[in-house]
């Protein structure tokens, strides 16, 4: 008990999930991961899971309010062609925004580890973006990359997500966040992305219009989603762009003058494409 108490903070306690917590925890997960879990997934993922065990869900509580939660799912995992291991998958861990950076996430991770110390779980695994893993999961839980041989593929059916990014960008233009950087711009760019419909963006002083016909473009960019993913990142550098151009994975068509205008205003496309596009 003393060791369990040691993982708790001064103002909150960690304990396992009770039936009366279900709605609050489901709501907390929905608010944190609304883009892909959308609430109803919690019931399915946990309550209707054949291997669900409440003792593998930890909640952090402060004055009767659940401020964070951490879920594990017990699983058998195949680790080679002939070996299957009893393990657990660390799934949804989240803390209410106003309680972050107070050690709640770390305490929730430690709590489940202590709670199930006697089970001698051979393997714990989870999925995360490399950045989150580096700053949280590895220092707190000792995680290393699995021998991953999985490739994810995507096919774009429409550019609705880009259009949402355009709406957000135009709002920032309206609020004069970019000053007069767009004042003299008048440019139409068509993105021809392999396996996807064309995307045509017109940029001028008022912002970006994503709903114009593709035939009147000044510049055409020919590429694929993989390449776009490589250049849309924060760390996209000119040399990377040049390398992709030389490798033929990125092509530009259009008049030299308009291409220079596009080069000067690459930041606009970076702003729009750096959000979710698939």
């Amino acid at each position, binding site marked *: 008990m003393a060791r369990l108490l040691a993982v708790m903070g001064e103002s909150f306690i960690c304990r396992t999930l009770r039936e009366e917590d279900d709605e609050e925890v489901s709501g907390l997960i929905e608010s944190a991961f609304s883009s892909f879990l959308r609430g109803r997934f919690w019931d399915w993922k946990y309550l209707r899971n054949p291997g669900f065990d409440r003792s593998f869900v930890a909640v952090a509580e402060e004055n009767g309010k659940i401020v964070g939660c951490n879920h594990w799912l017990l699983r058998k995992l195949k680790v080679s062609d002939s070996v299957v291991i009893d393990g657990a998958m660390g799934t949804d861990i989240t803390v209410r925004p106003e309680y972050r950076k107070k050690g709640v996430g770390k305490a929730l991770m430690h709590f489940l580890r202590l709670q199930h110390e006697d089970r*001698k779980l051979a*393997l714990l695994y989870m999925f995360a973006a490399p950045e989150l893993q580096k700053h949280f999961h590895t220092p707190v839980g000792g995680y290393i*990359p699995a021998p*991953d041989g999985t490739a994810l593929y995507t096919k774009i059916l429409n550019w609705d997500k880009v259009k949402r990014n355009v709406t957000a960008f135009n709002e920032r233009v309206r609020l004069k966040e970019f000053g007069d950087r767009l004042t003299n711009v008048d440019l139409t760019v068509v993105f021809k992305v392999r396996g996807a419909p064309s995307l045509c963006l017109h940029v001028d002083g008022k912002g970006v219009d994503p709903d114009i016909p593709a035939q009147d473009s000044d510049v055409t960019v020919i590429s694929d989603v*993989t390449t776009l993913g490589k250049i849309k990142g924060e760390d996209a550098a000119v040399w990377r762009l040049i390398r992709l151009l030389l490798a033929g994975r990125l092509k530009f068509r259009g008049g030299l003058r308009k291409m220079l205008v596009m080069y000067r205003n690459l930041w606009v496309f970076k702003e729009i494409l750096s959000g979710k596009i698939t």
Partner: protein
Amino acid sequence: MIRYSIRTFEDGDEKEIVELFNEVFNSYGGFVPRTVEYWRWCCLKRPDVERDGVFLVSDGQKLRGYLVAGSSGNIWEFCVSNDDEEVARTLLCEALKYLEKFAISSVNVNVPLDSGLVESLREVGFSAISAERMFVTTLSPEAIVQVLASSRKERLASRFDDEFGFRLRDVPYGVRKEFSVEIRSGALKVSEGFSSKPSVVVELGFMDLLSILFEGSSAWRLFLARKISVRPFRKLGAALSFLSAIRLRGLWFFPLSDYG
């Protein structure tokens, strides 16, 4: 030429689906071996999956492939016997036709890196993108070593006659620092702590042990980088060979249905 037929899911298909999945991905690690109960939960009962989003292709006698498409735009499982391109294309085209009904902006699917289905995916307009990665750790180093060593018990017993005591540095919260592996007269025993005075003491970092077991890091290279120490020194070869012998080989593949 084989004639394939495609249809949607019917009750009773689960058994054949599960058998095909376990057969097709048998050479990989990293996924939950399918049982009918698990498959029903991870695919059929998934909130965004309807029965008419589960497509099966057969050659009249045997199931040759299946695909589970969710209205969220994820192809949760895509499994094709012998990487048959015609079966793959048939399933993907049917799934795309089905998914176009929903207001989604993209369709995602994952396959093993060395899969022969990559070409079929490219043909119908899919491109590779970066994704979240899988990470592993252990709560019990002795438990993982026990499982891995047991699966190679005969080979280990013929090569070693020692008791290895492992002392780990920088263990994460809740993990014990010491365990021992005794290989004597064909028997293998892994236990917590040092049961008696071990004939070989191996000291290394917790992360270094994991990196040998999972990432295939060379125990010899870690020794040269002074991350592993062995006492007595004359047992260095035995200790490093033992660690190399129990490490995992082969790639891991996790279908989206295990992850989401």
